[in-house]
């Protein structure tokens, strides 16, 4: 089944948001706000109020990475120390807690950061191909509202866009 992608470029957030508000109020039957992808040069601070809270699991990655880093760090260090033969030094114990705490802390942060970055890459779908409807103007100063919808709704959407002073409409059909 063919899917239609339509994107309207607006000159500012207000116009884009009023368009989305209408979509939210079912201006076009069968098209919900969940179908909307907003493309913008910056993140609007109140974007949740328009698009709804879509959530982000990135902090969970951070938590997992940090916990893993700390535990792995400590065990790694302790096992290395326990099996490394020239460790009796300065009257210190073989497995020294002060140093291991310091290093585990560093490992906590390192793995936390790495895991966060991986979480971001996955969740933000980075390192994928850009959408065909990507417009360079989005990185300049325009706000894009893109919807994925059936053929029957394309025209009414374009009408809606035009109502809100859209500057440009692009569309794409995927097989």
């Amino acid at each position: 089944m063919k899917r239609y992608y339509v994107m309207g470029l607006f000159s500012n957030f207000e116009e884009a948001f009023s368009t989305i508000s209408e979509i939210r109020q079912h201006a076009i039957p069968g098209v919900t706000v969940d179908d909307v992808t907003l493309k913008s040069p910056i993140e609007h601070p109140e974007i949740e109020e328009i698009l709804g809270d879509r959530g982000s699991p990135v902090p969970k990655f951070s938590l997992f990475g940090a916990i893993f880093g700390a535990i792995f760090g400590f065990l790694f260090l302790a096992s290395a120390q326990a099996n490394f033969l020239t460790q009796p030094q300065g009257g210190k114990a073989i497995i020294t807690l002060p140093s291991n705490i310091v290093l585990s802390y560093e490992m906590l942060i390192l793995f936390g950061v790495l895991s966060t970055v991986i979480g971001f890459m996955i969740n933000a779908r980075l390192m994928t191909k850009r959408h065909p409807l990507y417009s360079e103007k989005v990185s300049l100063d325009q706000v894009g509202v893109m919807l994925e919808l059936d053929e029957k709704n394309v025209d009414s959407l374009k009408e809606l866009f035009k109502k809100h002073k859209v500057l440009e409409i692009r569309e794409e059909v995927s097989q």
Partner: protein
Amino acid sequence: MSGSDINRRDFLKFMGLGGVGAATLSGCDMPTTITLEEGKEKVVAYLAPEEYAIPGIGVTFASTCKQCPSGCGVHGRVREGRVLKLEGNPDALNGKGLCQMGQASLQGHYNPDRITQPMARKGGALEPVTWEEAWKLMKEKASGAAQGRSAWFTGTVSGHQSVLLSALNKAWGSKDHYVYEAINNAVGEAVNKSVLGDAAPAYRLDKAKVVLSFGADFLGTWVSPVHFSREYSKFRTGDRGVLIQVEPKMTLTGGNADLWVAARPGTEGVVALGVANVLLSKNQVDGKQLPQAALDVISQYGVDKVTEISGVPGDTLVRIAKYLNERSPSLVLSGESAHGHANGYQNAMAAMMLNVLLGNVGETIEASNSMAFDELKAKHGNSKAMLDFAAAADAGKYDVVFFTGANPVYTAPDHLAMAEKVAKVPFKVALSMFPDETTMAADLVLPLSSPYEEWGTSVSPYQPTDAAISMSQPLMKPLSAETKSLGDILLSMLKYQGIKDYEGFDDYYAYLRSELDGLPGSVKAGKDGDEFWSAAVQRGVIKVPTKAGSLKVNLGDVSPGGHQSGGDYPMHLIPSSNQTMYDGRNANLPWLQEAPDQITKIFWDSWVEMHPKAAAKLGVKEGDFVRVESDQGAVEAQVYIYKGVHVNAVAIPVGRGHEEYGRYAKGNGVNPLKILSSIVDGKSGELATHATRVRISKVGRSEELPRLGGSEVQVGRRLVNTVSADVFKRTEGA
């Protein structure tokens, strides 16, 4: 390692979790012992320290150190045909100890600047020649020397070398054998001889409870330092003795004194008289031991007068007298800095007077155990020999002179013009290991083997307890095929002169074997030739019977000589000898060059010691160069300032400032002996080394002093704490 028996798979499982990679930790089980004998083969961890290197097995051979005249016995550790390390020979006088010069004598043996083949002067320069050519030259120039027109100039010699030397001189019809040591106790020996009838009596430091030493650096350079150090150790334990040192510049012994007293140079005798005066007047010591003449002289030296002359405060004199009076027996010694004056003999005599007064003769000064074989005894050097030689050479007395074991061209003061006088001798032969100044002035240089490459016997000049012949044996094959031992050369020369007695010996070794074979049965303790020989070589010493000595007391005139003012030269020059460079012979040993001086901690260079007050007056600080000028010349060196030198004196160490003598010695520092004034001790004729007056001026240059260490005080850290002798006696006293 205990308790960690992880295996590879478990480890990989664990490590795999972290995705780190693959390896095993178990490969480095540290072996606690690895010995080849057991045939154990274990992986030696990369992190094994030296402990796990398998040491080779060394073999120890006994020999004798020739680095100074004391002649300490050594044990050389030999591995793979190389001698690696020297230790003291417990059977010898020095015991298991050895001083730094002895330790470093190995570097003389292995010195890169050793002469490895004969050299002859051709057209002004010394050039290598073969032994054949050398012998030919000897034949041409030396063998034909007329009766009495040849001489030997040597350092201290003893044992069979001495025998051969005498024989050789006899063959040449010459009586002239100059035995020279720049650092000697000749004045003291003269006084001993005159008063006690024994030039080198035994000083029983270990028995003494008070030692009053007038400049005798018995821990550093005086007579037999290692032996005295051992005695000192006994002296300091149990009922600990007091050491009082009176001298113008702190020697190593002074550095260990309980009371270090700086007397104006040359007034040591006056101080001794002052002490005697206090003892007699204040402490009610019975003066009947002393002849009336001496008592008369003493009575003239009241405390105030002594203080005026010597600069030693009255209460210090009283304190010294108190120690001497309260603790008995005592021992009074005199050394270099007291002897090296125009009145050196009187100074030594005054010190001896104290010994007589305090009844030390027979108590702490015992008759030496003179050995029965006079011909083997050490011919101990003095500096009069050099003065005599200079006069004789100047007078053109000799056609040929042989030098060995002494370096007069370096040690002689400029006023002697030794180089020119030596040059007047038509043919000079140097038998030498090193290209020192005298050797380089010779016409023919014969390369000597090192003391650790040759056979030999020697007898220590100072034999306090047992008389013994020290054995030298090669600790390794000669480094150079061309060098010959002094004994071999002497023997060859004797054969060359056609002396029949020596024709039967192939070499010096054969001669020695036969000579030792000929020792009386009492020495050999019933052993036959081979057995005795190997026992002697193994032990390193042969104990020999002694002639029982006895001491008489015949005190001479104790009145101190006059004390003249310096005029234009207000300061006294102390050319101090120390255990690093000694008389300059050690300047080619890098270990000793790099070893900091015991007192000042300066290395690789000469310095001028000054008292803070004198330095302040002159306006110099540590590291500034000053010019020290006598009527004979001047030297320049950096200043080291401390309170261990008399206010009116500057001290410059002897032994550096070589013009030759190899890469380590050449061009390092200055030679203070060069600027000595021509003053001799009136009685003994010895060179008055400490009598030179100098003036000091700023040069204006400054440089960091080559000195080890930063702070000279502990800044309150108590790294070395000092407790009083009373406390020591309470806790550890005998």
